[in-house]
């Protein structure tokens, strides 16, 4: 039966049925194993994201069992049966399973080939209730991840075949600061792979293909090649008659004969061309990412901190590279490294269920390796993989982001102080999985944040500030206290505001650092005039916090409106609103949700400059702490600003593992923006003086805040009220708001009366 890509299996030869008695027996045993294993676990343990050791073992058993069965080969009916067993285990009822079958989810392949979004709508169509739907989604992701992890482990065990061509640029001067070794490697494999793919090609395939075969020529004449090195393995070619190397007639590359097989169809692929391909590929894929968050793996991506800050997964990997410029990371199975609170990603890999038809002998996919230094041999890679896997736990000593996949000690620009190896082989093999020769673009491993390109982000180390380098004001250091921490005034090469965050909601002290990083890593990616300038983090002495620039004389919008009680005129309101709009829109483009937009978090440096701060911190986990069963502890006017969908989502029970996080979206930020705008226009808080419960009830029932009589153009009022629409889609977008704000006030100017008396018109008609 067709086993996986790695096809060294004895079944590789198209045994078209499970007809041999040995097979039948093996299958029966495998099925029985699976059933037994499934009985052992409870669904909760399986689906909790904190994988305890024994849960992991059980899962491994499950997958071993399934894998065994796949080796044995299955017909449709059996696949369905396994499917059914799996879903029952997950907790779906028979009716649900039938529904899924009707929607053609009959085997794991199908399950993995649909996106999260589709699965959700499927679940809704089948009227699965919230719990079951969640279990279904989560279990699918977990299944996939485990399959892949298991699979790659298997891969390492099997002998590396001859069909791992690699292309190496010979040129040591090849300086690709923004490309790194592995990125190129990935791209190449992806682009190349599609060329040589079997008829089926993956959904996320790139259309860029470089598939030009070389024209190898082995000279019979004497060739002197003392200095030349093989393009692939970087070892010197022999000389004289004892040569075993060949040269491509078109691109002039020289490779050892034995390396030739691994080179693949990369004729003409110069570094420049590669870079071009790479850029295009990145843009394409990232265009997809920016444009459509839903298509990114994990449709609840916005709410999972690990997605919001796309480099966090990378951050979490354990390399201690310092300021390594182009160091993309491929954590060994991202899911394993993401903390327990986030649901694992749904990758777009396919579950490789062997079909009963035979696969044609496929080529092992080429791997592009552009090295400037030593090229690691496969054994080195393997070792590094093992090392990494051992050290890949999140111990909270995570200092920097990024690891180099194939560890290049002397690669350009990166000086690893303590080079910790990366899961190269595993990453590499992600692209070699498919039986049909194609593979998918591992999008979430590769995004703009992992590649040090035009949107490079600071690594953790660059932004760490030692707490003792900051001088605190002796007299009155504290300038503010919020629900989640305090703000102190300090001096660190200038006036700074030091925010110390309370991390008590994570009881396990060793996990606090990592949780803190997840929460605040979005700050370092923000560069906008209207967003408080972030200077650095600190994490010492059990204090977690960050340093922001402070401009003396800045006060919060809240203070201005409610304490000083200044009435803002319309032009000022408009200016402030527009700046807030721009800032929030910037955050949204960076896939950061504010989640706590309110007047206390908006600082006015002077009448003309607005700065927003404190985004991305609010979460149910924080609100539910300290654990009083009978209430959530929130900041004072929190319920005034939350969107109805958030208000409706707050539950009477909170469970660390089971409860879903609040469904913040861009539109919920827009709702809060509307509330702030209301505050500026009226000087009142929305739903002023109501109790939190009353507000929740009102919001759920669609009751909007009252508008007192204020002088405001009706279009502006309409726009504001539209921000409060219960239906998220109907709220205006920030660009709409910005546009309208500009045009409406322009109109206003036109209405000004001339400064000389106009004879024709009456007094009333002028105003």
């Amino acid at each position, binding site marked *: 039966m067709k086993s996986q890509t790695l096809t060294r299996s004895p079944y590789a030869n198209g045994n078209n049925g499970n007809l041999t008695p040995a097979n039948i027996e093996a299958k029966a045993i495998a099925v029985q194993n699976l059933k037994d294993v499934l009985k052992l676990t409870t669904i909760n343990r399986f689906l909790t994201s904190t994988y305890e050791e024994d849960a992991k073992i059980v899962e491994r058993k499950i997958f071993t069992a399934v894998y065994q069965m796949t080796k044995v080969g299955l017909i449709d009916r059996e696949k369905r049966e396994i499917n059914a067993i799996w879903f029952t285990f997950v907790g779906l009822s028979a009716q649900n399973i039938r529904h899924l079958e009707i929607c053609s989810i009959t085997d794991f392949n199908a399950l993995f080939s649909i996106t999260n979004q589709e699965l959700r709508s499927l679940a809704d169509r089948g009227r699965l209730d919230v719990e079951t739907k969640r279990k279904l989604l989560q279990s699918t992701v977990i299944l996939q991840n485990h399959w892949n992890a298991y699979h790659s482990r298997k891969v390492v065990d099997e002998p590396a075949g001859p069909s791992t061509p690699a292309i190496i640029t010979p040129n040591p001067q090849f300086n690709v600061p923004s490309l790194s070794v592995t990125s190129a490697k990935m791209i190449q494999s992806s682009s190349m792979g599609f060329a040589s793919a079997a008829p089926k090609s993956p959904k996320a395939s790139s259309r860029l293909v470089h598939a030009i075969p070389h024209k190898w020529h082995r000279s019979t004449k004497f060739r002197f090649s003392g200095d030349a090195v093989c393009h692939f393995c970087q070892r010197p070619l022999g000389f004289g008659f004892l040569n075993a190397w060949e040269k491509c007639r078109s691109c002039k590359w020289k490779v050892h004969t034995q390396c030739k097989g691994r080179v693949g169809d990369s004729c003409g692929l110069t570094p420049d061309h590669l870079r071009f391909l790479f850029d295009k590929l990145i843009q394409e894929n990232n265009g997809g990412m920016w444009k459509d968050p839903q298509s990114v793996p994990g449709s609840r991506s916005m709410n999972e901190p690990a997605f919001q800050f796309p480099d966090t997964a990378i951050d979490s990997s354990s390399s201690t590279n310092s300021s390594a410029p182009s160091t993309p990371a491929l954590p060994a199975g991202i899911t394993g490294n993401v903390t327990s609170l986030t649901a694992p990603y749904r990758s777009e890999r396919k579950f490789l269920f062997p079909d009963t038809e035979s696969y044609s002998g496929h080529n092992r996919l080429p791997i592009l390796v552009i090295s400037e230094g030593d090229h690691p041999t496969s054994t080195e890679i393997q070792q590094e993989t093992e090392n990494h896997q051992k050290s890949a736990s999140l111990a909270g000593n995570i200092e920097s982001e990024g690891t180099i996949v194939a560890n290049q000690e002397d690669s350009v620009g990166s000086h690893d102080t303590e080079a910790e190896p990366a899961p190269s082989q595993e990453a590499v093999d992600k692209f070699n999985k498919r039986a049909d020769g194609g593979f998918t673009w591992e999008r979430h491993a590769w995004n703009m944040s992992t590649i040090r390109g035009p949107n490079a982000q600071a690594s953790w180390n660059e932004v760490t500030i030692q707490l003792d380098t900051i001088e605190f004001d002796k007299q009155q250091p504290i300038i503010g206290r919020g629900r989640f921490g305090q703000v102190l005034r300090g001096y660190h090469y200038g006036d700074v505001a030091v925010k110390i965050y309370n991390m008590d909601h994570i009881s396990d002290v060793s996990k606090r650092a990592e949780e803190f990083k997840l929460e605040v890593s979005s700050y370092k990616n923000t560069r906008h005039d209207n967003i408080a300038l972030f200077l650095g983090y600190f994490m010492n002495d059990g204090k977690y916090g960050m340093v922001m620039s402070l401009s003396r004389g800045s006060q919060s919008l809240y203070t201005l409106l409610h304490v000083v009680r200044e009435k803002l005129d319309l032009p000022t309101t408009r200016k402030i609103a527009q700046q807030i709009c721009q800032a929030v829109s910037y955050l949204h483009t960076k896939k950061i949700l504010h989640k706590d937009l309110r007047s206390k978090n908006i600082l006015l440096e002077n009448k003309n400059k607005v700065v927003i701060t404190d985004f991305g911190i609010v979460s149910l986990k924080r609100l539910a702490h300290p654990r009083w069963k009978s209430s959530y502890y929130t900041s004072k006017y929190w319920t005034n600003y939350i969107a109805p969908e958030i208000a409706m989502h707050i539950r009477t029970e909170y469970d660390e593992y089971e409860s879903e996080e609040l469904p913040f979206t861009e539109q919920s930020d827009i709702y809060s923006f509307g509330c702030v705008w209301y505050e500026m226009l009226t000087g009142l808080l929305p739903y002023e003086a109501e109790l939190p*419960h009353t507000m929740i009830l009102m919001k759920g029932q669609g009751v909007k805040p009252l508008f007192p009589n204020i002088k405001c153009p009706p279009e502006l009022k309409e726009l504001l009220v539209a921000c409060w629409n219960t239906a998220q889609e109907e709220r205006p977008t920030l660009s709409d708001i910005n546009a309208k704000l500009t045009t409406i006030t322009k109109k206003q100017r036109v209405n000004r009366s001339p400064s000389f008396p106009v004879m024709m018109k009456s007094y009333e008609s002028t105003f």
Partner: protein
Amino acid sequence: MSSGKRRNPLGLSLPPTVNEQSESGEAAAEEATATVPLEEQLKKLGLTEPQTQRLSEFLQAKEGIKCVHKKTGVIMARKLVHLEIKPSVRQQIVKELAVLHKCNSPFIVGFYGAFVDNNDISICMEYMDGLSLDIVLKKVGRLPEKFVGRISVAVVRGLTYLKDEIKILHRDVKPSNMLVNSNGEIKLCDFGVSGMLIDSMANSFVGTRSYMAPERLTGSHYTISSDIWSFGLSLVELLIGRYPVPAPSQAEYASMFNVSENEIELADSLEEPNYHPPSNPASMAIFEMLDYIVNGPPPTLPKRFFTDEVIGFVSKCLRKLPSERATLKSLTSDVFFTQYADNDDQGEFADFVKATINLPKLNP
């Protein structure tokens, strides 16, 4: 004296008190409380850093850090509230809290004093060793009717006292604000004496349960009737052992009381067509819960396990329309009330409380 100079010829001045804001702690001589001697101290000078002996169980931060007044050795409970206020507001709060000194009733928790320290206010009150009724409930499951009767009498009397003598409404009647001690006393605490204090609180609580009357939830003005509703709801909770929203189904009652389902007769209102049980009782959204309170049927008691008197008493309190609800006066003339009004239970309740002090919680 005539001239200003004469008034203070020797230039004497009082030493400034450490805590100018602190109130004099002349705790009122309350009747019949024996555990804590109440006539003592006047100033609370040393209290900014009292010896705190933490309770093994925290009530909520609002309540109960058990502490000892250094000077007099009195055990009291200290409540810490974090505020964000201006100094002027601070004065007002302290003034409002001064009212508490006047509160002198066997049904109201004693008040020693309060002081403001930075942005935190500490309120020191009588320590009730039996803690609050919601904790007792967690340990015991449900309370027998006779105890609930005694409790009702105490609470009604306490509310009457607050309304008539102090002229304030409680605003937050619920089991966790009813404290008991091993003398068998039941006292109310945490009533809304200082509006300023409530407004100045830096953070707020979004409760996962609501004891508020339906009209209050929809934004109406607060009256004593809303307190009555909260009182009724609390009684139902004490009697059935769980927060009564959403109303338990027959199956639930059956398992609570260990009988078969068909023996449970739900009150008529629950069989109305409007009754829509929530999707997943285990974890409702707060909105759903509130919606149920406002639009759903009021909680009732199942007929079989409770006397008609208590069922009647409770249903009088739990009318959706405030105009239909009983008043404090009418409650005092109710049969259930008079039954327990001056009933001397020979210390039964006191013993019960003593027994529960050492029990562990059933299920958290």
